[in-house]
């Protein structure tokens, strides 16, 4: 066991934060989507790493599910982003503000 488990936690946390940072700072819907993918993968790192740590495969299997769902999410997301572009002629998520308060 070369790398202590805590390091994976730090790595995944870092990745999670990068994703979060992307969400908070970027306005492009596609980049928003990518950032979410980063965050999901941060979870995957944990799951895979600790699956090994605890000696069961549950985590690894679950990470496969997560990836599949991430893909599905992207599919739905792209669809929504498409209609967004059609209606607002922009991919900027901050432009769609017809409803507020």
């Amino acid at each position: 066991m070369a790398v202590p488990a805590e390091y994976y936690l730090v790595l995944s946390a870092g990745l999670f934060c990068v994703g979060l940072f992307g969400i908070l700072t970027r306005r492009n819907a596609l980049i928003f989507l990518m950032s979410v993918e980063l965050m999901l993968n941060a979870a995957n790192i944990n799951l895979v790493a600790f699956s090994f740590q605890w000696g069961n495969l549950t985590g690894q299997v679950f990470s496969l599910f997560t990836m599949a769902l991430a893909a599905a999410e992207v599919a739905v997301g792209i669809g929504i982003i498409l209609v967004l572009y059609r209606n607002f002629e922009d991919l900027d998520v901050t432009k769609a503000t017809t409803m507020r308060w």
Partner: protein
Amino acid sequence: MIPLQSADVLPQWTALAPALALATTALVLFVIDSIDPDSMDSGLLAGVSTIGALASAGISGWFLVAGTGMSRTGGAIELFGGQLVVDGMALFFMFVFASVLALVTVASYDYLEGQPHQAEYYSLMLLATTGMALMASANSLATAFVSLELASLPSFALVAFLKNNRGSVEAGLKYFLIGALSSSVFVYGISLVYAATGRLQLAAIADVIASGEALDPGVLGVGILMIVGGVAYKTASVPFHFWAPEAYEGAPAPVSGFLSSASKAAGFVLAFRIFTVAFPLDVITGVAVDWGVAFTALAVLTMTLGNFAAATQDTVKRMLAYSSIGHAGYALIGLAVLSGAADQSFALGASMMHLLVYGFMNTGAFLFVALAEYWGVGRTFEDYNGLATQAPIACTAMTVFLFSLAGLPIGGGFWSKYFLLVAATGASAWLLAAALIVNSALSLFYYSRVVKAMWIEEPDGSFEVSSYPTGLYAAVITAGVMTFLLLVGFGPVSATATDAAAMLF
């Protein structure tokens, strides 16, 4: 009583029949769609969906009466190696989802008149409900996440269903973005809990924590709070509620009703099970985090924000959206008071009852909005002026919904709201009780604004109700009658919910 799912009567897997009925109906709809993709025959689609929904509701109701998965018939039925569980609570919520679905599909028959892609609409709805049904029986964090996504992804599409309507698209976008963010928070939380315990199955997690084998409490604690975040998103609770006002306002009104009632309830059932089974208070307190405190804070903030923001809205639909946030706050009381409750199963049961009643009265209210949209009545309170002179029956139903939402004894909302107050009092949660009182007063104010507009104000004559859509009317009136009947016949609901909740402790 002989258990229904004993070897002699029915096989074990049939306990999932309500969910299976929904899934099957979704597939049937796909088949219909593939046979005739351009069909605009909404009658067939809505009919099939409704039949599926009613079948699901019927089966879950039958199981509830028969005692499937209840302690009196041998306890919860675990399926697929404990990944799913069917017990009273699961069936209770399946009944809620299916009933709401049935109302919504009936109403959609008129609402979607002339819209393309109806088959997709109905199958998405059925799939989302299937996801919710699975959420109700999810017994592991893995199935929880998967079913949550199964419920969420169709919902995103449903909200954005009116793809040429800017509001609908904007709502879909916001719902989707916040939803994606929240689910990544949720799954990250799951990964942290897995990191700390090495388990995903709920009961196993509790065992590990209880045995003291868990890793760093900080990791576990952060994981739990992130799971709190995940369910807060699904239940539209502060601070994960931001999607809700826009999504409910922008979405087609039947979808709003569906989401704000069924989807919210699904979030709650998930929360009930995860927190009482995986992180029981007696195990978790002192080790990682007393989530009761977290939920108390969220409950107070949620009901306050929801009601205060609702009080000054200009449009009815958005007011209902915020009120829906407020009701999430009420339902959270059940979780929040568990630590101090004299009677835990009653406290949790009160939340369950509230969600059931809420399923009818809130869906009904949104469907009335759908009716108004169908007639082309405007969105604001003023636009509803004098509506009662033209549609007295629908307005009576709407009055029942609103006053029931406000907790007046004209609908079942009275019981559930006061039961929640009883639960808060019983746990000596004075803060929650006080918040409930203040917010309830405010809610009375804004709900009665609609009543005032409909009944008291003079119509300005700007519209004429020309037709009375059968489907919408049927749905609204059914919801109204159900809401009223729940006032009189609340006994079985109360007993079932309390019994079902008791199994979690």
